[in-house]
């Protein structure tokens, strides 16, 4: 009874299913659009006003530019990191433990790999959009001066991929929702402060700086800053390579651990 299906058709059908999962997330997000778009717009705005404008006057030049200009690309890196992280920790946990959304999806033709891809693609899309919103907000304050800034959403996208995968790995091990504090405060907040987003890495003691060079956010910030200031150097290839390496390492791990948690 099994109809012979060509490999091409199989790939098309698989892509349609991945897209269907992505659309599910988009649909839920747009349903509460007003509440959902407040943080990505207002947070960078407050950041610019609170830190950029407020502190700039006292700081003089940071890394050769006005502090608000220095801060702008940092925010473009941070916003997608938080967005993807919350989606993949609290969001994934609620879908898994309370709403049983994944069980329902896996009862349809969607496979586990397709479901994971759809979810991570959505987190990445949202992260890209968030970084673009930061571009808009900072541009309005005259903090970006290069058309290269249009590359920011692509970096935002891969930032979303990395932190979505990382969050999923954490979620697959978390039994109690309060345990996310260890990850959020212990792993993400230090990246926010120390990975070059809010002050130059050179200020850090050597050991801490070495640790930061392993963290993905450091490399994301470097890329964002280069595109914002149209300042390109060979080191950027290394930054991009590290980001891709993180994705390559995290993906199979996220797949295996979340599958083990959901499928019994």
């Amino acid at each position, binding site marked *: 009874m*099994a109809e012979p299906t060509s490999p091409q058709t199989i790939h098309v059908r698989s892509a349609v*299913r991945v897209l269907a999962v992505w659309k599910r997330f988009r649909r*839920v997000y747009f*349903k509460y659009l007003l509440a959902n778009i407040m943080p990505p717009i207002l947070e960078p705005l407050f950041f610019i006003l609170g830190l950029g404008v407020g502190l700039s006057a006292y700081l003089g030049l940071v890394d050769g530019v006005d502090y608000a200009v220095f801060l702008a690309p940092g925010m473009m890196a941070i916003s997608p990191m938080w967005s993807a992280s919350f989606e993949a920790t609290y969001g994934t946990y609620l879908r898994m433990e309370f709403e049983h959304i994944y069980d329902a999806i896996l009862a*349809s033709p969607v496979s586990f790999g397709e479901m994971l891809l759809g979810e991570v693609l959505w987190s990445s899309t949202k992260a890209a959009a968030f970084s673009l919103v930061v571009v808009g907000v900072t541009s309005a304050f005259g903090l970006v001066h290069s058309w290269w800034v249009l590359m920011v959403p692509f970096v935002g996208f891969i930032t979303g991929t990395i932190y979505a995968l990382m969050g999923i790995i954490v979620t697959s091990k978390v039994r109690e929702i309060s345990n996310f504090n260890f990850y959020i405060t212990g792993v993400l907040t230090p990246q926010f402060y120390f990975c070059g987003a809010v002050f130059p890495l050179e200020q850090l003691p050597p050991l801490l700086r070495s640790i930061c060079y392993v963290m993905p956010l450091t490399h994301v910030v470097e890329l964002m800053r280069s595109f914002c200031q149209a300042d390109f150097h060979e080191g950027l290839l290394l930054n991009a390579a590290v980001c891709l390496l993180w994705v390559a390492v995290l993906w199979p791990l996220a797949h295996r651990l979340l599958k083990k948690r959901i499928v019994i």
Partner: protein
Amino acid sequence: MNSKQEVVVARGLTKSFGNVKAVDGIDFEVREGECFGILGPNGAGKTSTMRMLYDFSPRDGGELKVFGMDPARLGNQVRQLLGVVQQQDNLDQELTVRENLEVYAGYYGIDFHGLGGRLDELLEFMELEGRGGSQIRELSGGMQRRLTILRALVHNPRMVILDEPSTGLDPQARHQIWAVLRKLMSGGVTVVLTTHYMDEAERLCDRLVIMDKGHILHEGAPRELIARHLKRLVLEADLRDLQESWTTCGLEYESYGDRVFFNAESEDAFSVVPYRENVVMGVLRPAGLEDVFLKLTGRRLEDG
């Protein structure tokens, strides 16, 4: 394998969790168009068996063919032909009734935009007409279950598998679910369901297996199973209403807790039951699957 008739064939199907064999080498087959029941207490291995059918859980041993395909290899294609209703309610709480159906249809590759008519038809089929715009939390438990079943039907599956479809529902809601399943069956859809309610199994199933501790104890049509193991009538009496000599009154019996179940072919035979003084007789009823289960395992179904 006769693929025209048997849509599921399981041979030596096994599922282990650590050292525990949840499903221990069972054989069964499901025929096209029938309602096949897996009856058993909690922990019998019913859900594990179901999950292997649609490749939610990988199996640890044995052979399994669903519509001629191995679910472990061609899960996508198998699930495309199945409608699956899981035990836990798992509707998308953030979406409305209509949106739930549209999103789920997307997983089957169906574009539901612009197919409003078909959707209304389905809602009507499930007695949910006019509810398309409702939030899930506004629906009663019975309505949510009907919507979950409906969601599994958006792609016109050839076989629907339901894990305890009426557990936790009030009697009226259960009857509505049964009515829906009968409508499905009259449309030629194969139905596989698990239950620990013997009345549900007796009402719906053409054929069933009784499972306990990972094994299939018996297989057959409900009436056939009852006829094979029991006489026609059961008299259910309270132990405290009987004289000490009840064990030797000559009737076949099973006892469980403070209940005694006498079994005989005719009403007259129960006249030998030795009641205490001033006691009216116990409850007389036809023998059912529950009695079969009690006889086979010494336990009642719902106790697990």
